């Protein structure tokens, strides 16, 4: 067809006009650190595995998750999910139920028998791990995956540490625990039970280990001096909860007093109810809001009939009763004795006042620094002794299972580098994807899914799991609530909103590219990117 001169123009002729020369600002795709990832003590790429879960590829999601944390089914039950506290979705409605989805994936993996991939060729190095708690198991998992020969030496008769001997069954069923531990063992990790290490130096030499990771936890109950009569029954929480794992359950009587305000105290009280106690009373010297225990656990406990005696300290214990003194908070929030006393009936008193570390295995090892009852370690998790690393409750720590798991991973990486004569330097972190960087308009309204909870009557009579998991459709829904903060999820917005058609779509999974020949730098893409993964930077003029 003829094109009369100048009147009529052929298709494509505008492409010669490179409007990119107009720019003073240029868009760039950036990666920002999602706040959930940033908050996770185990260093999980939460956003990453949620993204896999969203497309229904649960196995891929599970594998992505277990890249960092081998215990999702456990985490999904006992982790206090700081990720959810940090989740930007709270700005819209409520945080994504990350914990629920983690549990779903963990449970699915157990149900489907998914196994970890076989580790690579052996490095020839041997690592000793002391303690088969979460920290030791995590370190073992990562070290085995790096090709090292791992042996765990565990003082107790079964693996799990606090997971088995501290957290009650109604929070963490033992079959779940066993399944996840077994999977780690299947990576050719040897666990020896009833084998307490008396001296770490000797243990290393005897076994020909190239490095060691100490994760013995804190299993010694702290004691307070409380005058007690001869027949008074005073136990400690560690003792009580440990004995729940054995054949003989502890006999606590009809009225049980639990002294302390932490999660352990609640665990004991709720266990007592399940054992048939008519009354389980928490005695705590301050108020509810000052309790170290997590609030939801307090709620659950109260629902189950656990009673709370705030602002009270135990003065003395007799057979069948205790005397408490009422406290009052002063202006600084500290409890002060009031001089008023009260007698409470009690068949037993369980002290839940915190735990100390059994440091006996460290005797005779020069160079190890102990402070405030815990072993000091450097940022590489190594103690003062080269080749001896430590983590979990026995080092300065927030003392949660997740933190312990995180320590194990971190230590494993440093151990691996140290064994090769290198230093492990983690990659620098991106800027955090804070809520102000998002354009939340684009996310649909989707309130959080509630996890079903066991009916009250059954809760107090059995050790059946109280909080149930989500079924698949709910887990999928929950995963899809993730905003993908700071990382492109291929929503096509930039590709769609550019008035100059200057964004090239590279195809599913390949993201996008700015066509800088034509991009005028208007900034609409950055503004309309829901997850804040586009940044405008000044052009060099």
């Amino acid at each position, binding site marked *: 067809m003829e094109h009369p001169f100048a009147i009529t*123009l052929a298709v494509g002729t505008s492409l010669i*006009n490179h409007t990119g020369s107009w720019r003073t600002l240029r868009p760039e795709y950036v990666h920002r650190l999602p706040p959930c990832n940033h908050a996770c003590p185990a260093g999980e790429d939460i956003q990453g595995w949620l993204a896999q879960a969203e497309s229904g590829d649960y196995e891929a999601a599970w594998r992505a998750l277990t890249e960092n944390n081998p215990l999702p089914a456990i985490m999904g039950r006992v982790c206090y999910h700081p990720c959810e506290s940090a989740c930007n979705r709270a700005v819209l409605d409520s945080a994504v139920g990350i914990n629920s989805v983690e549990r779903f994936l963990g449970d699915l993996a157990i149900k489907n028998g998914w196994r970890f991939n076989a580790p690579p060729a052996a490095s020839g190095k041997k690592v000793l791990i002391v303690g088969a708690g979460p920290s030791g198991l995590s370190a073992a998992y990562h070290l085995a995956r790096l090709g090292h020969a791992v042996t765990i030496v565990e003082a107790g008769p079964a693996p799990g540490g606090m997971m088995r001997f501290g957290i009650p069954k109604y929070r963490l069923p033992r079959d779940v625990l066993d399944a996840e531990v077994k999977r780690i063992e299947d990576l050719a990790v040897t666990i020896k039970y009833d084998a307490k290490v008396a001296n770490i130096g000797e243990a290393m030499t005897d076994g020909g280990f190239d490095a060691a990771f100490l994760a013995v936890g804190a299993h010694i109950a702290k004691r307070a001096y409380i005058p007690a009569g001869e027949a008074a029954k005073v136990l400690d929480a560690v003792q009580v909860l440990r004995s729940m794992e054995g054949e003989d359950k502890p006999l606590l009587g009809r009225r049980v007093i639990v002294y302390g305000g932490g999660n352990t105290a609640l665990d004991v009280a709720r266990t007592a109810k399940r054992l048939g106690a008519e009354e389980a009373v928490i005695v705590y010297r301050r108020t509810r809001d000052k309790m170290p225990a997590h609030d939801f656990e307090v709620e659950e406990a109260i629902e189950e009939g656990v009673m709370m005696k705030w602002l009270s300290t135990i003065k003395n214990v007799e057979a069948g009763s205790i005397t408490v003194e009422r406290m009052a908070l002063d202006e600084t929030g500290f409890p002060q004795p009031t001089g008023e006393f009260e007698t409470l009936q009690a068949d037993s008193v369980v002290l839940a006042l915190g735990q100390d570390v059994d440091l006996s295995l460290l005797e005779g090892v020069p160079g190890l620094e102990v402070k405030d009852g815990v072993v000091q370690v450097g940022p590489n998790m190594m103690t003062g002794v080269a080749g001896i690393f430590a983590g979990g409750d026995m080092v300065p720590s927030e003392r949660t299972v997740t933190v312990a798991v995180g320590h194990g991973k971190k230590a494993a990486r440093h151990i691996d580098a140290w064994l090769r004569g290198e230093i492990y330097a983690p990659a620098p972190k991106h800027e955090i994807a804070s809520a102000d960087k998002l354009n939340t308009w684009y996310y649909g309204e989707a309130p959080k899914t509630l996890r079903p909870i066991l009916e009250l009557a059954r809760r107090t009579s059995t050790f059946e799991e109280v909080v149930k998991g989500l079924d698949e459709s*709910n887990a999928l829904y929950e995963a899809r*609530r993730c905003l993908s903060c700071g990382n492109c999820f291929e929503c*096509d917005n930039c590709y*769609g*909103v550019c008035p100059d058609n*200057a964004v090239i*779509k590279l195809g599913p999974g390949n993201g996008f590219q700015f066509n800088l020949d034509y991009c005028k730098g208007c900034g*609409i893409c950055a503004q309309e990117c829901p997850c804040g993964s586009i940044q405008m930077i000044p052009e060099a003029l």
Partner: protein
Amino acid sequence: MTPPVATLTPEETVQKLKYYQKGTFTVGNRLVAEAERTVQASQDRSNALTCGHRACQGCGEALGARYAIDAAMRATNNNLIAVNATGCLEVFTTPYPETSWQLPWLHSLFGNAAAVATGVAAAMRVKKRPEVRVIAQGGDGGTTDIGFQCLSGMFERNDDVLYICYDNEGYMNTGVQRSSATPPTARTATTPALGPEPGNVFGTGKSVPKIAVAHNIPYVATATVADLHDLERKVIKAMSIHGARYIQINVPCPLGWGSASHDTIRLARLAVECGLYPIFEAEHGKVTQVRKIRRKVPVQDYLKLQRRFAHLFKGGIEDPRIARLQAMCDANIAEYGLVDTTGKDG
């Protein structure tokens, strides 16, 4: 973090996977079937208006035009001809020797796009090519003012033309002069912010969508670049209908409105969410559907981002005419039922 304490029934815990939460309102969504995504999300979209054009940075009209024409191209299987009135869209897309249109396109005059399109449609009928459809398009100046006669004639004859008006509320190409689509109080070059009533005056202006509805034509709709899904749905729906159709798309103009180039879609969104620009559809003289406001905002949120309204906030004091603008919003909300009292997601 307080988890729920109430015990729930199985029905309550199972929530229907109705939403694709992470991208319900986005252009695309990798979790959604291709057919349900927008046309713009597709790598195969026509790009009927492609790169290299001379629109300002952040031009809402360039965006609206590509949105609308690509949707129409999809709906007609690329059997589409566009007739363009004189104005920004025509000027920035076809300065000799460059054109950024990739479909057959004709520019005649300022006020006759609707009539020229009628002629093209007649030609297609007579040539027995009913599959080839025709769109006439222009800015508000070329539609509500100088093009009004031809527009009304096309409506009255029920010619098989879809007329798309890109409404940026002024004659932008000639330097931001007032049109009958310019909102009250807005500053333009011919309604300067001077004197006792700075900016455009109240008591003037016309709603061409309402006038279109009064012509009883088969389909009338307003749309916005801030809601791509809705816009595409309307264009595609319009292309399934034969006869006179009118779609008016609100397109912010950073230059004319005195707004930041990156705020184009944000402003379009605010215009809808405050109620100043009602989004609705009508068929044969009756309103059939409205787009509810999702998160209502006061009109100030919209006005503050544009220097053409800056004189209403001079010295940190709010001009009382802002209340009149708010009243306009409220009247629209009442008239069209734009706020859903049940608070459901739109």
